[in-house]
């Protein structure tokens, strides 16, 4: 790891984003073994002026959904990784309006329930359509 990279890791710690950030394949990653409090992380990211980019859902073998939240902090890509519990996770859309569409999309594709949302109107699908359309097991049926 370069001196610059090490220095940025220290900067992330100093900014209160915790330890354990590691650079890999185009992003800084935080992949803790315990579930992250996504709302606290979102508040911290927003307080630092980070820009919400995206959330990537990936189906796991234990039927939970891995969720990667991507942010941009001064041109640096930060990704923190967590997972659903019984296919549920807290919403961040009220803290970060930019996450509204991506949560609705993730609900439709991977049947993730974002708790705390006032409503989850269909985005890509229509009212009454099945959810979880990108889940491999559902399509395999």
């Amino acid at each position, binding site marked *: 790891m370069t001196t610059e990279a090490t220095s940025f890791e220290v900067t992330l710690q100093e900014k209160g984003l915790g330890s354990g950030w590691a650079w890999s394949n*185009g992003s800084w990653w935080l992949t803790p073994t315990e579930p992250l409090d996504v709302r606290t992380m979102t508040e911290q990211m927003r307080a630092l002026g980070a*820009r919400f*980019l*995206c959330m990537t859902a990936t189906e796991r073998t234990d039927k939970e959904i891995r969720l*990667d939240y*991507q942010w941009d902090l001064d*041109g640096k890509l930060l990704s923190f990784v967590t997972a659903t519990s019984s296919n549920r996770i807290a919403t961040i859309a009220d803290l970060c309006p930019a996450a509204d*569409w991506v949560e609705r999309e993730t609900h439709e594709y991977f049947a993730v329930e974002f708790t705390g949302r006032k409503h989850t109107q269909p*985005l890509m699908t229509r009212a009454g359509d099945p959810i979880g359309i*990108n889940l491999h097991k559902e399509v395999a049926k």
Partner: protein
Amino acid sequence: MSYRIPIGPYHPALEEPYKLELICDGETVVDANLHIGFNFRGIEYLAERRNYLQGITLVERVCGICSNVHSLSFCQSVEQLNGATPPERALYIRVILAELERLHSHFLWAGIAAKLIGFKTIFMACFTLREKVMDALSAISGNRVNYGMNRIGGVNRDIMDPSSVMSILAEMEREITRTIIPIFLEDKTVESRCKGVGILTEEQAIAMGAVGPLARASGVPQDIRKSAPYAAYADLQFEVPVETAGDVRARLVVHALEMLESCKIIRQALTTIPEGPIQATVSSAGKFKVPAGTAISRVEAPRGEVLYQITSNGTDIPERVRVRTPTFMNMATVRFTVIGQELADSPLIQASCDPCYSCTDR
């Protein structure tokens, strides 16, 4: 009395399928609801059932305008995973293609904006210039759209005749400077149709995660080519135009000035492009072996930042392909930009956000 005007999803006034419900009080828009998903093709799902080579071809079909940025982002992500570093010459060719594509997209946008303003002479001028860009793209790649230029570890074709691109570039710069910029920046008709119309404030742009020219016209100086350079952008000198008014006029100004910057970038790249190979030299056995892992790549598309995340499980088929396009972030801002505006201005306001529903719906 308030009334609701449903527009779309298939409507003579719309270029692409989406639905907009405008709630109006008299001639003033008081709220708006946007419905998308009419062009959903399940491209992420399909990409997880094709090998990496097929994936390049597939993702290039996400969009018919900015097709190159999708294959570029896809290839950059895979290159991070398998370490296939493109040669310098390939990186410059990627920049030239990306900027020609930006010009093509911006001319298309400017033409449509001019038509909606009621300035059809500029519509014709923009589309004439767009044809020249497409001629250049065709001369380089053999295709007017879906160029098929990117490959894992480089590009598929060299630029055989840089002088022909240079001559097209000179003509475009002359027309942009002589016609498009003066009219977009100084013409009274354009000003009266666009100034103070469809404002997106800096706070709204940041909160909604707006990207690209839309964000830059609202004072957000964000451009991946500068903040996280890829390909050969770090070697090239260019400015990122930023306006603070956040209205339709500011979007016109940003787009027009970006056209000139693109010309500047292409000229520099063509004159400083290093000699050498255009594809990474890797053993045939290891050429398309992609180790397990997750990689992310970002590219500044004409409409803003595109993000690709690819997860490999070590096989020749990606486990996960995530595509986040600029319009996906930008379109939710339309609600803010039309509220309080005249109903008659809503087509121009929507168009000024440069939406692409093919990208958004994927």
